[in-house]
């Protein structure tokens, strides 16, 4: 994490960071979910977001690819302001086409997989590259086979999602997100909907992805994974970042009472 380069309104967050959040607020009606989140994620960094349910972790993740619109603050991904164009002091709402273009560089994996049930594993992976990336079918198919092999499902290409186990579905979902060659991967509790014996296979894929240098933000309850794979750990509660640091240090020696209370329940 770096904060050495000064960020002005005109520099638009350009810098070495892959993700930079400055005072991000989000409310749903009168319910304030995020109350000024500021953090940076460096290129190639793996950040784990932990915290009790309702703490705003998932909402923050969804703000990063503009699935949710922030009410205040700024978010940059790879130096590009998310959801808005800035001209001088004014912000202009982005056309949905522009927002869609930004999302192509950001892969997302959901808790409930959200695979397209009417498409085979292969078609799930080729869907975005052919529709959005305008890739030729043959090229997209070859690449999808490669990705499915990479997540250990090379033999499941023509299988429909409901014939796959939860762990296999989530691995297809990861392959689907990787198909657009994103520079950033967001994981929203990727193992929370899985049977315990299936968690490992998904975490293995994520671990190898991290080793290849992918920048990742992972909302998770898997403390083992966080300790082992993450470069930084962020503990959120009540819409604010309570504590942040190296995973081993935070887990072994939490500085805040709230962090201690949470960790004592999940460890």
């Amino acid at each position, binding site marked *: 994490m770096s904060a050495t380069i000064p960020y002005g309104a005109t520099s638009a967050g350009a810098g070495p960071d892959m993700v930079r959040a400055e005072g991000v607020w989000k409310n749903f009606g009168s319910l304030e979910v995020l109350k000024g989140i500021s953090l940076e994620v460096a290129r190639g960094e793996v950040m784990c977001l932990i915290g009790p349910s309702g703490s705003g972790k998932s909402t923050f993740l969804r703000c990063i*690819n503009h*699935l949710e619109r922030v009410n205040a603050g700024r978010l940059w991904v790879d130096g590009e302001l998310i959801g808005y164009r800035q001209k001088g002091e004014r912000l202009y709402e982005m056309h*949905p*086409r522009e927002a*869609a*273009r930004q*999302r*192509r560089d*950001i*892969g*997302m994996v*959901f808790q*409930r997989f*959200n*695979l*397209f*049930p*009417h*498409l*085979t594993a292969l078609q799930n992976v080729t*869907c*975005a590259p052919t*529709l*959005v990336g305008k890739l030729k079918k043959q090229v997209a198919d070859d690449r999808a086979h490669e990705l499915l092999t990479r997540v250990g499902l090379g033999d499941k290409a023509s*299988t*429909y*999602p*409901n*014939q796959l*186990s939860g762990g296999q579905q989530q691995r297809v*979902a990861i392959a*689907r*997100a990787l198909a*657009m060659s994103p520079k950033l991967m967001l994981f929203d509790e990727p193992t929370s909907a899985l049977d315990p014996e299936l968690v490992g296979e998904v975490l293995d894929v994520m671990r190898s992805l991290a080793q290849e240098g992918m920048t990742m933000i992972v909302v998770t309850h898997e403390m083992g994974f966080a300790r082992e794979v993450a470069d930084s750990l962020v503990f959120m509660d009540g819409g604010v970042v309570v504590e942040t640091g190296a995973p081993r240090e935070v887990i072994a020696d939490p500085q805040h009472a709230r962090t201690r209370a949470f960790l004592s329940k999940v460890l």
Partner: protein
Amino acid sequence: MNAQSLRPGRTEGESDPARERIEAVPLRHPGRWLAAGVIFVAVALFVYGAATNTAYNWDYYAKYIFDQRISQAALVTLELTVLSMVIAIVLGVLLAVMRLSPNQVLSGVAWVYLWVFRGTPVYVQLVFWGLFATIYKQLRVGVPFGPTFFTIDPASAIDVFWLAVIGLALNEAAYMAEIVRAGILSVDEGQGEAATALGLSWWQTMTHVTLPQAMRVIIPPTGNEIISMLKTTSLVTAVPFTLDLYTRSRDISAETFTPIPLLLVASTWYLFFTSILMVGQYFLERYFAKGARITAGAGR
């Protein structure tokens, strides 16, 4: 007993008492047999009565069932059904997508359309379409308050057959729109979210992710609507269009003074088409169920 002593029994299988086929005496259902007997007798009596009752005029039925005028009228009814349903489904999908669109102008237009075309009887609408040429004597295409490029004379340019098709289609589109909307809403929100996160546009999400999944919910009631439309075509006499199955058989019976056998003739043809439609619906449902069924032996 420990696990080891159990193993031989398991591998042999046939000697395993749990594997022995149950040969129990099936439960008897005397009530069902009695009911079936009573119904059989009642049906037999009705059939005998119908066959011997001269009011049914079966020789007339036999004479007109394959009469050329009737089979032509049956074809016209089928054409009315197919054409108006094709237009209604296309327009219905469009209206449903418009209603769910984030664009308030589009959703407002769709709402008003539904309000008008679903809120008035189809019979009344058909009468209106019949009066179209009376209401609009000339249609001019051009720049408002400016030059006219060409004019259409509705009375001569638009055939009553097409007025009937338009009348049926525009009414049906309102119902189809609601069916399609229900189908779209039945698709899990996460689907649209996943598509959006992948960078798909709203339109791509709708056509490639949401609508294909909505089809499973849309098809059964649509089959219902097609069957219903087949019978609603008998109202086109309101336009007035007289070449459909019902109106044609009424016209014939007006000459022969035999309304009952001709009603039976018309009913037979309606029933015949409905049966074909039901078969078609079965195969369509099977096609769009792909990915929704778990095929045998494929785990969870």
